[in-house]
């Protein structure tokens, strides 16, 4: 590891499996599911074809001080919770001289949808009660840079606060952007990740109308089944994942615990169709190849791909085609969305946490509900029990509506 390398020193998450990293990781290893039937009245009122989702395991309002919770959109609430966990996990935040110079501290937190539920609630209030009842905090609650801005404000980050928006690739793109900030010397420490909380009638209806969601309403825990022949779409989830990234030199100088390095990053665009991936997987393969190239990584070193695999009929197989092209047949795959559902703009960040822990602990969590593998898939996929492996490099893939592709190459240290 050279001093210019980027390392991961802190992890934070709140997800459908648990309110922190430990409970989420335990849930992944144990094969628990975060998916359940929704009990909101609008599910029946609109007769939505999709009646299931992966709600947060711990309500943010139970964790945050009351006044803070009422000032933040739910997507901002989860970002704050995960960021505080990650900051503390990295050994910062105890107010001593070890805290970072604000002008050398950056924040990059993405979201796919942003404060959609605030927009809906405030529009309802405007219609029913008039202008006076619309909160003066409406705009800071609904703006998609809100999660990044509030985390930046909390940590007094002044090297730059950014909010990439690239649908389901947003969280991974944030981590890629943080890597660039560190490699170009713009910052010593960057807090990066993604946040999403947009489970509402209109988002459920919109995704359902695009025919991309599972309608396995009578068996929620079996609904998200990447690579299985009977998969019928993704399951919407909510949550946040945040990582603390540092220049290796900085982390070593302060004696930080290092989970892994972020050796390389790759981004690309399909520019093929607004929602469907290029079926040849060319754009996805270019992102993976770029992650290897920027990390100076021989494909043979990649033992594991933490896949994007959302449980849609088209996307899951395309990704394995891309893995074969860019890396080969040898990486062992897993699909955390089988347990977490699809956290959209938070997915790439939460799954990066999972990828980093796979490297750190030498354990790959299983893919759930994979009873009969799609004949188009030839890779070795972990099912049943977690797999013990000695990993050198592991890749996390994230792809978003709009044709955004991001691959992150993490390496053991």
């Amino acid at each position, binding site marked *: 590891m050279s001093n210019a390398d980027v390392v991961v020193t802190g992890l934070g998450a709140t997800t459908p499996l648990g309110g922190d990293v430990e409970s989420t990781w335990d849930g992944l290893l144990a094969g628990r599911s975060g998916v359940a039937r929704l009990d909101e009245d609008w599910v029946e009122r609109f007769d939505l074809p999709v009646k299931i989702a992966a709600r947060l395991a711990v309500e943010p309002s139970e964790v945050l*001080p*009351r*006044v*803070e919770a009422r000032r933040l959109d739910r997507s901002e609430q989860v970002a704050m919770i995960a960021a505080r966990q990650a900051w503390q996990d990295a050994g910062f935040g105890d107010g001593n001289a070890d805290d970072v110079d604000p002008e050398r501290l950056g924040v990059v937190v993405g979201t796919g949808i942003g404060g959609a539920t605030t927009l809906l609630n405030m529009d309802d209030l405007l219609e029913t009660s008039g202008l*006076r*009842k619309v*909160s*003066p*905090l409406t705009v*800071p609650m609904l703006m998609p840079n809100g999660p990044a801005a509030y985390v930046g404000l909390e940590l007094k980050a002044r090297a730059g606060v950014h909010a990439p928006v690239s649908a389901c690739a947003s969280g991974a793109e944030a981590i890629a952007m943080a890597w660039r900030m560190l490699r170009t010397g713009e910052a010593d420490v960057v807090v990066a990740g993604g946040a999403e909380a947009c489970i509402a009638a209109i988002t459920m209806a919109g995704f359902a109308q695009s025919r991309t969601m599972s309608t396995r309403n009578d068996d929620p825990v079996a609904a998200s089944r990447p690579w299985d022949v009977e998969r019928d779409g993704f399951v919407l989830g909510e949550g946040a994942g945040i990582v603390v990234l540092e220049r290796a030199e900085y982390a070593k100088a302060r004696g930080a615990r290092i989970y892994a390095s972020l050796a390389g990053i790759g981004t690309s665009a399909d520019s093929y169709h607004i929602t469907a991936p290029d079926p040849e997987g060319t754009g996805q393969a270019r992102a993976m190849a770029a992650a290897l190239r920027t990390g100076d990584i021989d494909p043979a070193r990649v033992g594991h791909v933490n896949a994007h695999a959302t449980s849609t009929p088209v996307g899951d197989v395309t990704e394995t085609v891309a893995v074969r092209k860019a890396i080969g047949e040898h990486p062992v795959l897993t699909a955390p969305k089988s347990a977490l559902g699809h956290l959209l703009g938070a997915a790439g960040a939460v799954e990066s946490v999972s990828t980093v822990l796979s490297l750190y602990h030498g354990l790959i969590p299983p893919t759930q509900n994979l009873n009969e593998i799609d004949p188009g898939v030839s890779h070795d996929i972990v099912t049943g029990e977690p797999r013990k492996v000695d990993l050198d490099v592991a890749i996390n893939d994230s792809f978003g509506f709009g044709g955004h592709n991001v691959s992150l190459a993490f390496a053991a240290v």
Partner: protein
Amino acid sequence: MADKQLTEQDIVAGLAEIVEEVAGVAQDEVTKEKSFVDDLDIDSLSMVEIAVQAEDKFGVKIPDDELANLKTVGDAVAYVANNS
């Protein structure tokens, strides 16, 4: 609507409830000599919320140009007393 029998003490207590609800400031901190911005750390966005809730609670109108003059809790108490 406003109760014509409102005492100064009632208004302070009513404002304190609103300030606690909106900004999380303990009710016993909300006393007449305190400045909303400098002492109670309330930002301009929260002041708008406090004004709307005070209008509902005390049956007064607080136009924006008047709101700008309400620097202290005492200013707000006097405004409510004179306009309800």
